[in-house]
């Protein structure tokens, strides 16, 4: 095997430019695929985190008074699917707001009455889908004294739609780019084969088996795939480190995001896939040439 690896490395060196182009093409395809994987992994984690303990704010009508609170809490609890419930009175809400907007005291001086409603903050139990959360919120809204329920439905709904769209686009784009990478790899092997046609012919004449002839090409394909995958992931890691902190800062106001790079499992899958891609490109090419 060492002999074949040395031979493959020597062939890569003698066809540097061709191999460089192939590795770059594979790495770009892998980069695109891993960008989608990174997004899916983190987006799935966001959705999962939100589903496992999403918070909602129940705003109450003006007619609400403190003596109605036990009944209301009972009614809400009766709907189930709640882990925690905290009442926030309008005066507590105003104090909190003043604390958060301490730099704008003049604005609060203009207020004659407290415009904020009484509210109950709840932490919901885990839901399987956004539709279930929406249905639960509608049930709460249907209760007496409840004016509306705020649970991030705007951005989350949009996020989920984008997520679905992104997923479909991702599958299509990844398939397309992997096909292109496969085509380029197969073509590189074909060109390498034609440039070594005399060598292959002589090998056959001196009694080399097909395995002996093909193995260096396969090793070359595996090298291309492996290094293409590693390069693609390295570019992704660079990009991730450059922009991840900014994304985390923007989203933490809405929901806790644990932004992470691809898991070890995903990294191994990507490298294995790209290595396989190199091998498969070689296989297709040799199958066509040597049929």
């Amino acid at each position: 095997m060492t002999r074949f690896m040395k031979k493959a490395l020597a062939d890569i060196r003698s066809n540097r430019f061709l191999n460089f182009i192939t590795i770059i093409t594979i790495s770009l395809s892998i980069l695109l695929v891993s960008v989608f994987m990174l997004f899916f992994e983190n987006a799935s984690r966001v959705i999962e985190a939100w589903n496992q303990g999403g918070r909602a704010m129940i705003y109450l009508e003006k007619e609400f008074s403190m003596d109605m609170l036990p009944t209301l809490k009972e009614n809400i609890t009766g709907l189930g699917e709640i882990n925690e419930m905290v009442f926030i009175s309008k005066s507590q809400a105003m104090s909190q707001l003043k604390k958060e907007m301490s730099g704008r005291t003049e604005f609060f001086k203009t207020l004659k009455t407290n415009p904020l409603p009484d509210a109950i903050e709840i932490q919901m139990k885990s839901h399987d889908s956004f539709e279930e959360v929406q249905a639960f919120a509608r049930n709460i809204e249907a209760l007496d004294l409840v004016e509306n329920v705020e649970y991030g439905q705007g951005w989350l709904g949009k996020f989920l739609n984008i997520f679905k769209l992104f997923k479909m686009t991702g599958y299509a784009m990844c398939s397309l780019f992997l096909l292109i990478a496969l085509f380029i790899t197969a073509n590189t092997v074909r060109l390498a084969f034609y440039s070594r046609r005399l060598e292959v012919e002589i090998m056959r004449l001196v009694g080399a088996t097909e395995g002996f002839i093909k193995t260096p090409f396969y090793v070359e394909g595996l090298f291309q795939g492996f290094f293409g995958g590693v390069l693609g992931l390295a570019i992704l890691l660079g990009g991730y480190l450059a922009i991840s902190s900014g994304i985390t800062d923007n989203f933490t106001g809405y929901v806790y995001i644990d932004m992470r790079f691809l898991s070890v499992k995903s990294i191994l899958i990507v490298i294995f896939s790209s290595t396989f891609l190199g091998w498969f490109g070689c296989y297709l090419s040799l199958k066509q040439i040597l049929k």
Partner: protein
Amino acid sequence: MNADDNTIIRLFNVSKRYGSKLALSDVSLDIEQGEFIFVSGPSGAGKSTLLKVLYLAEKVSEGQILIDGMNLARISSGKLPFLRRRFGMIFQDFKLIPNRTVFENVALVLEAAGEKPGYIRKKVMHVLRTTGMGKKAKSLPLTLSGGEQQRVAVARAVVGEPSIILADEPTGSLDEKAAQTILDFLIGYHKKGATILVASHNLHLMESTIRGRNIALEDGKLKTTSTML
């Protein structure tokens, strides 16, 4: 073929067609182990085709060939490389890999046979020294003269210690001195027991050098077979 038979190559009514052209026509021939065969004839007589059908670079159109009792028509593609290892091939155009050194070109035969690197190094250097190319082991073929390239080709043909050597116009592009050197190598190897078939139109050079059998071809047909003394 009976048990006492020393025949290593046997052709039964072999014909080879390229389209409508008949390159070999109904050739029947027995070659004994250790014979030195000189295949003569003008250009287009079928000399190269005869060698090609022997090492299965071409398949026969009709007839059968037995090599050491093995019917070539029944050799599977998987077993073909193992059959070819029994042959050492020398070509008029040398067929050396230009981007590989002399050493690597010769070593290829043993690498293909799965020999160990240590053995390959030792054996190749020994053969290169025998053919006078030991000092050129690291040279690339294109930096060598025609005679030197053919000596490398001879080294490659004999390094695997084949039982049969087929040489297609081995002296065709060489001057007389270089051609004589190549023939001397072949004679030396023949003395070690190898069966040798040399296809050439240079009958004069062969007659003056080799004691063997001359097989004359004309228009693909076996014309005469005679012993040269």
